[in-house]
């Protein structure tokens, strides 16, 4: 048996595993007295199962996964908490060259604007629906309980596309997306980096829009922690959160981009070329036609309280689970979702660092149209701009009416 300070963290080879990787590689974990081992995994299901059997104490997980788990939606139900997020943004929607050509015919431009590209996609979908010779468009996301699934469906719905009738949505693991797109198995996908950049650089696809534009300052991966382990090892967990916070700060520093790309490119981590990783880190994405476009807040590992586990994020994911028929809404289910995220543990652990800590546990998503200083303890904290591209507001105190107003 290892000592209490030994932590094994599972991760998937994606850009947003950066915070965990840097905590280990640059000894932020060691400085907090933690012997951190990283285990590269091949599927989210493996991460979930190995958390459940205790191989991992913590893991890089999709933000809605622990909520789905606590709600009993996943095959293995072991209580999991989220004491920290691992960054904001990071995903994009990429479509095949053929679909992009059709979208351009309908007025799409390579500016990643979700409203304009969405309108073009809607026009393509309508044409397809009227034609008997062309099959329904098929898109892939990485997991049913993923930010990808929800932001992609949200985008489609806001553009008038019914994601359960007008198109088909399937599950494909991130490393297989590019092949599936290139072979014509799917027409597009919503995935994390580097799998959008990879398609654009290889000339296999065009980036249509980005998560940072669909829902600005939206959460992506979080730290999933076995609830029982956390209860028994609160001090160790706190030390780990401090290490991860320092690692996130390092990752967010523009001066470190080159080094970060080099570390992540290593075979034991993301294991892909540096050139695939740099665009997302720099916020300059290749669009697929040889040009690059700047994207504000494409991947935010530290600034804007990017590691804070907002209860409003948990509740928005829950609202989408209800919207897409994964669970029935009830006060009890909402409570389980809300309590999965643990800002109290985050605050208690990070207070000694003197960094900016939000005073609130939840915020109205979409309320900030510009960068805004907000109430915080410690250093001053600036949040936003945030919000949904269609102007939607999510007030976690009005969950019932939000759910009732959701259209399919």
């Amino acid at each position, binding site marked *: 048996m290892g000592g209490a300070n030994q932590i094994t963290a599972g991760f998937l080879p994606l850009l947003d595993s950066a915070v965990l990787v840097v905590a280990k590689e640059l000894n932020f974990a060691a400085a907090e007295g933690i012997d951190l081992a990283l285990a590269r995994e*091949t599927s989210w299901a493996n991460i979930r199962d190995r958390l459940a059997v205790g191989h991992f104490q913590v893991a890089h997980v999709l933000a809605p996964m622990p909520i789905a788990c606590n709600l009993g939606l996943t095959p293995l139900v072991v209580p999991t908490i989220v004491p920290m997020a691992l960054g904001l943004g990071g995903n994009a929607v990429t479509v095949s060259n053929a679909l992009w050509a059709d979208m351009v015919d309908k007025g799409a431009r390579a500016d990643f604007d979700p409203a304009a590209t969405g309108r073009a996609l809607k026009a393509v979908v309508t044409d397809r629906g009227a034609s008997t010779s062309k099959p329904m468009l098929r898109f892939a996301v990485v997991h049913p309980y993923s930010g990808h699934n929800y932001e992609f469906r949200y985008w489609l719905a806001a553009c008038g596309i019914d994601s359960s009738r007008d198109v088909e949505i399937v599950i494909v693991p991130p490393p297989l997306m590019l092949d599936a797109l290139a072979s014509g198995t799917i027409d597009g996908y919503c995935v994390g980096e580097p799998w959008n950049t990879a398609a654009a650089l290889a000339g296999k696809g065009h980036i249509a829009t980005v998560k940072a534009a669909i829902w600005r300052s939206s959460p992506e991966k979080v730290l999933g922690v076995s609830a029982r382990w956390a209860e028994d090892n609160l001090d160790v967990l706190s030390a780990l959160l401090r290490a991860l916070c320092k690692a996130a700060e390092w990752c967010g520093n523009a001066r470190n981009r080159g080094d970060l790309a080099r570390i992540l490119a290593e075979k034991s981590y993301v294991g892909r070329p540096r050139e695939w990783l740099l665009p997302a880190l720099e916020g300059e994405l290749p669009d697929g036609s040889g040009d690059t476009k700047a994207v504000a807040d494409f991947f935010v590992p530290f600034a804007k309280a990017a590691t804070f586990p907002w209860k409003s994020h948990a509740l928005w994911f829950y609202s989408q689970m209800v919207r897409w028929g994964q669970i029935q809404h009830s006060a009890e289910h909402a409570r389980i979702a809300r309590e999965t995220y643990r800002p109290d543990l985050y605050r208690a652990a990070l207070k000694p660092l003197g960094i900016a800590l939000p005073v609130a546990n939840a915020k109205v998503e979409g309320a900030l149209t510009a960068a805004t200083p907000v109430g915080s303890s410690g250093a001053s904290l600036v949040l936003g701009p945030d919000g949904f591209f269609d102007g939607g507001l999510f007030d976690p105190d009005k969950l019932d009416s939000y759910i009732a107003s959701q259209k399919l």
Partner: protein
Amino acid sequence: MQPPPNPLSVLVIDENRLRASVIEAGLRDAGYVNLTIVHDVVGIARRITEIEPDVIVIDLENPNRDMLENMFQLSRAVKRPIAMFVDHSDSASIEAAVDAGVSAYVVDGLKKERVKPLLDMAICRFNAFSRMVRELEEARSELENRKLVDRAKGILMATRGLSESEAYALLRKTAMNQNRKIGEIAEGLITAAGLLSPREGER
């Protein structure tokens, strides 16, 4: 004696053909006749709808587990969700399965007694397979070691004028004194000899 045929329909997905055949043989021996083995998940959606398996056994190395779970859930969309590894509460089975590198998806409501032996067998076969792979690996490194030791002996014989048995004795003594493996000592000696020998053009 052949066990009575088991009507449970089982789908085994393993990209490693050798391991798949090891599992298949075990399942057939145990009387599972309704068996489908798949090496490639391309087109698996249709296969699942066709076969309507009661149980899917898959290796943990397969990145398509997320896709498969979703698929299995969809193909049984009107029924209840899937359970995994026999039973949520059976943590010993879950741990054994994950340790062995195998996972099973089971239709909820299927009797635990009927699935448990199947999963136990799969775990056992997975373990047997990894033991076999490990033994092969050990045998190969053993052979490598012997080659290294032979070369190191040759170097000692040529440079120090030792007999073969004296050269071996010296290697073994050094290994014992330094508490290292004889193969490591031999490897170090070969590297050092390579560094010290004059190269072409430097003479």
